[in-house]
């Protein structure tokens, strides 16, 4: 019997590898390369000497602990300890995200699209697809772990032993396998891939939160979270392996549970059935604008919460920021010295720049949804009715432009809420919100660019993401890597006045509004004149 359940598993695993032959290497290479490249920068960021002890102090503050995990090995704070402490958790989260996305893609999404049905009509076991997915992801996670261990070990930095480097990789491997297994489990419960994704990400968020609370208050809570558990490996200092085995065992149990559920359920069915919804559209939904808001509701709310939390987590470290920046040459290099402004103000100016680029992501997501709808052949329903193309595009545009404002304000509110609790004199709220709004016209230029691409090069809309990535690189690392000035000047952010340190004048705001408006007008014209594909 068991043999039949897994019939042709290897062939299906081959199919998965074949389908994702581009995607999988990109994930692995970018995670490994980013890890190694960032780790290589650490000796420069944290030169040996008394400053390290200041950093050790900061690492013990609860705000930092809640963000990156508990500090360890602080009495001999070598580069290995700093790297593992600051990077391991976030890398593990990225690996978890990769596993969630890939698992859903090959299980519930394939099933929903009716592709598994075709497979299952062939002499293929009932569990073969689930098993093939787990097999491929296990291989991916092991490869990722080995390459990371190899890359970090080869850096040969202070305190970064081979044993520690491979443990670092092993942490990523088991976290990956564990989240692949839990996602496989959720994929059995729900009927839709959206719901399965939702549960899996909620579980990841919960694991992170449980660890954050646990690390700052009670150790037991952290041990309940897989993310909390793996940090107890104390990579590069004590190199404990027991958390690895526990998480691996938990992953095996989850996989078995998922297999069990898979064998007792019907194809394309779940254990949570989809709830019935309203039989009538609310008055609110009955326009293109209402439709956009309804479709993007989840995205907008999730990002709104995310921006607030991002701001709040920066705000939480405000108390130590002055001590930190004054002790860190590299950050001082990144911050311009301006007479008459405190270090806090300078920190706010830097945060505004970074957070506005993050806020540009949901802004662009909303605008590019128009293209997503077109590709899914859903715009033709609207355009075949009494909706003109400018009207349809404007509905997405208006929401996108507003999202930029909302995200900016929320990030500042988040920043202020925790800064007010940790500092005696936080920055002035009204003034800083005004400063954050200075970024909005420049964010709108990116929206304008997206509109132009939708109008003239609908196949190439992802170029706008590349441009945002370049903007982030040129702006954030520009002063750090001492890149030439013109590189930042190729992006809108190169022209944004350094508020609140510099005043914002109409002379910079007006041209950016004009450019954004011009790009939008051009894009609208293109959209009106071209064929709708789908």
């Amino acid at each position, binding site marked *: 019997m068991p043999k039949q359940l897994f019939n042709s598993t290897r062939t299906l695993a081959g199919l998965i590898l074949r389908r994702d032959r581009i995607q999988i290497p990109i994930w692995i290479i970018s995670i490994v390369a980013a890890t190694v490249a960032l780790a290589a920068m650490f000796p420069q960021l944290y030169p040996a000497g008394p400053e390290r002890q200041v950093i050790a102090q900061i690492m013990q503050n609860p705000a930092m602990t809640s963000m990156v995990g508990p500090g360890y090995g602080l009495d001999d704070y070598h580069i290995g300890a700093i790297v593992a402490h600051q990077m391991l958790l976030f890398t593990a989260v990225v690996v978890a995200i990769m596993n969630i996305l890939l698992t859903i893609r090959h299980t519930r999404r394939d099933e929903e699209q009716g592709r598994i049905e075709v497979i299952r009509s062939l002499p293929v076991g009932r569990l073969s697809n689930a098993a093939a997915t787990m097999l491929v992801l296990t291989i991916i996670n092991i490869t990722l772990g080995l390459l990371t261990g190899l890359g970090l070990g080869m850096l040969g930095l202070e305190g970064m032993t081979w044993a520690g480097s491979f443990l670092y990789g092993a942490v990523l491997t088991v976290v990956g396998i564990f989240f692949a297994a839990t996602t496989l489990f959720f994929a059995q419960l729900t009927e839709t891939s959206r719901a399965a994704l939702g549960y899996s990400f909620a579980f990841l968020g919960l694991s992170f939160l449980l660890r954050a609370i646990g690390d700052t208050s009670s150790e037991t809570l952290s041990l309940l979270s897989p993310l909390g558990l793996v940090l107890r490996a104390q990579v590069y200092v004590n190199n404990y392996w027991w958390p690895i085995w526990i998480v691996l065992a938990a992953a095996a149990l989850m996989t078995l549970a998922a297999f069990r559920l898979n064998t007792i359920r019907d194809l394309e069915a779940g254990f949570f059935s989809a709830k019935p919804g*309203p039989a009538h559209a609310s008055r609110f*939904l009955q326009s293109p604008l209402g439709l956009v808001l309804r479709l993007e509701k989840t995205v907008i709310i999730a990002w709104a919460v995310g921006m607030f939390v991002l701001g709040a987590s920066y705000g939480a470290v405000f108390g130590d920021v002055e001590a930190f920046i004054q002790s860190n040459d590299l950050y001082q290099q990144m911050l311009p010295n301006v007479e008459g402004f405190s270090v806090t103000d300078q920190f706010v100016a830097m945060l505004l720049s970074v957070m506005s680029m993050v806020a540009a992501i949901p802004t662009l997501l909303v605008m590019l949804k128009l293209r997503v709808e077109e590709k899914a052949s*859903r715009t033709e*329903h*609207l355009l075949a009715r009494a*909706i003109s193309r400018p009207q349809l595009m404007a509905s997405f545009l208006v929401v996108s432009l507003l999202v930029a404002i909302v995200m900016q304000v929320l990030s500042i509110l988040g920043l202020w809420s925790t800064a007010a609790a940790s500092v005696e004199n936080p920055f002035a709220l009204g003034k800083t919100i005004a400063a954050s709004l200075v970024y909005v016209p420049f964010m709108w230029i990116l929206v304008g660019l997206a509109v132009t691409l939708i109008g003239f090069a609908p196949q190439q809309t992802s170029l706008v993401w590349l441009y945002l990535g370049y903007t982030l690189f040129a702006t954030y690392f520009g002063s750090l890597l001492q890149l030439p000035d013109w590189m930042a000047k190729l992006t809108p952010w190169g022209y944004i006045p350094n508020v609140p340190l510099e005043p914002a004048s109409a002379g910079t705001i007006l041209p950016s509004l004009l450019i954004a408006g011009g790009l939008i007008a051009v894009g609208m014209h293109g959209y009106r004149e071209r064929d709708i594909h789908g």
Partner: protein
Amino acid sequence: MAVIRVHDVTKKFGNFTALDKINLEVNQGEVYGFIGPNGAGKTTTIRILLGILKATSGTAQVFGLDAWADAVEIHKRIAYVPGEVSLWPNLTGGEVIDLFVKLRGPNNKSRREELIERFDLDPTKKCGTYSKGNRQKVALIAAFASDADLYILDEPTSGLDPLMELVFQECIAEVKAAGKSVLLSSHILSEVEKLCDRVSIIRQGRIIESGSLQELRHLTRTQVRVETAQPIPNLSELAGVYDLQEFEGGATFQVDGVHIGEVIKYISNYGILALESAPPTLEDLFIHHYQKEG
């Protein structure tokens, strides 16, 4: 009065010519069938009529207005059902119907409920859980619930069960009785035969035949089975006779529409005992055209 007038429309996608100077005219109050195999250009034609694609050359007019430039004005008076209905997975069928009806114009509530009942649709289910047939029902209900002058339907019944196909045919009949026009692209030839006044056959981007079914039938062969008192000599040598099979006391054969008179006259000389003739079905017509051209 022509509701749709397509004159010499050509559509190119890069080097590929999807439509090559096609002409089409649909009159007020007429149900017009548009048939052809996959990839012949039916959907491209319909999308040009909807102003979703822009014709490379030629004119496409609906209600005397330009299909591209006056799209919104035209769409206030038409209802459209695409062949492949893709809907928002997280909205319910009921919500989508309301949205579609609202986007066209005034909402007609009673008609909506009646159609939901006739098509037997659960409007509280999310579109993501609907089958192909149910998604098609959503689009059909939204189309028939709106009070349009022209219905453009692109293979609207490909996912429906026979019962629902009947409901669909009733809806078309009602619409026709109300003096509205319909452009129906379909693969189901018996359906086109039952519903349509006139048809066009499209093949590789060209209209190869247009006219009423009766006119088209003249162009093809009729199946004849005859029994006679005396054997018929030299039947195979008559003009327009094909596929002759003789048996004891009779024969079956096909005869070209234009030659049928002469042939019947000839065989009546031999004492007809029984004569059956079947008009060509649209299917015969269709296959005839493809074999001829292909």
